[in-house]
């Protein structure tokens, strides 16, 4: 199995590891971004926050709702995508690219094994 493969949670976040496997980039899926509608505000995670897999690390707000962003893995937040403060709509335009939310120093790479592959996630959302 390719450890750098992008993985997905049942809560519609994605995570992709760096070359060295030490840091992960986290965002929300295309499917989630479509369901949310126009994102008008993003609450970014606090830098240096220590989080456990499944913790709320931020939030995405559209006209109709606020949705917590749950971290797919445990670790320490090392970077947040500040572009989203000024341009929250980037999440709609490119949720799995420029609209990434945060980078995390991964505590235990093994946690990624619990997550879904792109194919598995596609099947999950088609249900």
């Amino acid at each position: 199995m390719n450890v750098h493969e992008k993985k997905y949670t049942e809560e519609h976040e994605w995570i992709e590891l760096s070359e060295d496997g030490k840091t992960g980039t986290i965002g929300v899926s295309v499917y989630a971004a479509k369901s949310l509608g126009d994102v008008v505000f993003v609450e970014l995670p606090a830098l240096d926050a220590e989080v456990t897999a499944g913790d709320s690390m931020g939030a995405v707000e559209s006209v109709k709702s606020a949705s917590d962003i749950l971290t797919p893995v445990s670790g320490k937040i090392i970077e947040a995508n500040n572009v989203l403060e000024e341009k929250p709509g980037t999440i709609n335009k490119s949720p799995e690219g420029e609209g990434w939310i945060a980078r995390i120093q991964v505590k235990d790479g093994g946690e990624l094994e619990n997550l879904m592959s792109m194919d598995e996630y596609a099947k999950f959302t088609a249900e």
Partner: protein
Amino acid sequence: MKLAGLLPQRRQASSDASTSNGGLKYTALHEVHVSSGGKMVPFGGYSMPVQYSDLSVGDSHKWTREKASLFDVGHMVQHRLCGPGAAPLLEKITPSSTASLQTNHSTLSCFLHPLTGGIVDDTVITRLGPELFYLVTNAACKANDIAYLEEQIEFRDTSHGAVEWEVLNDWGLVALQGPLSAVILQRALVTAGVEDVDLKALYFGQCKHVTLNLFRKQSSEPDTPILISRAGYTGEDGFEISIPPALTIAFTTHLLECGGRERLRLAGLGARDSLRLEAGMCLYGHDLDDKTTPVEAGLSWIVHKDRRASGGFHGGETILRQLRPVNDGGSAPKHRRVGLIVEGAPAREGAEIVNPASPNSAEVVGRVTSGCPSPTLGKNIAMGYVKPPLHRAGTPMEVLVRGKRRKAEVVQMPFVKSRYWKPATGTSPS
């Protein structure tokens, strides 16, 4: 992230249609919603569209303010009250003046609890004749309202005479809202064979029965008219149309065709909620409940001036005391509904409101009851309750959103100016 409430209801393993919707009821227009890409969610015991696949909630909201939208509000409960006892009953259970309510006119009102004056439900009362009234109440309150009305009718003062009460269970109700509503509805009426109705003469708060000649041959109830009320829940010009069961799908489809997709789109509960919030209107169960009086809810205006001297309605003593100045034997309400503009993050229902001027700067003075980013203003708007005198416009506040303090300010409502069709100043509706 949790997407509950945003996504289509999860399909059940069972393929039995009668059980696959979790016991939710369908309105007459269910098939129209599904075939138009409606995302169905549970609301008030019904499966209702929160939005449609052609527009996001924000875009549907803007479409309504710029063009026109059609909302199915068939989940709401329509009642008829008639008989010599109907007006006295309404004067007992609401703070409205039926004596001042002319035939074919409507007023916002509420059912009240005896003694406490708490709001059982908010309702629009329309007078259709000397002894005939039409009421619309909330779907989510249906069971409570029916129990309340049964009790109020049973234990009323029977010296006024009989009251007949009917719930129009299978009737359709749609809301056509937005600046193009009148043009679209006028065309829909003309093409349905109705030549003698001029909607320019039907003002906000008025209604009219209209018989649709075009549908006569298709309907098993040929002579039952539709009821067109110039009303709505968006702050825009528009109409709420009560439609007999046999005509609901046919007339709704006819309206959509007459509007055309370049002018008229279906809109769901998502846009309905952000539109009503911009218009400063309450949603029962959120901004109103049965512990709150009309005065506390900022709805003193629905306590008609003719009822303020004599009272005689449920909770009258409590409500009239709240309306009197404190130096005249009155007692100020303990909390008041206000509008808030919130900086940064949108404040949603439940968010704590903090008074930054308090010596104890963490003093919680109330809670947000509804809130969202306003598509029209590009600001975060909210309603909530605070302790007087903090309800005064201009008072700086703070709201706690996910543990962070966000600056807020009390502002007058509506947040977005209403654009109702009213007679020009100096003229009166004929």
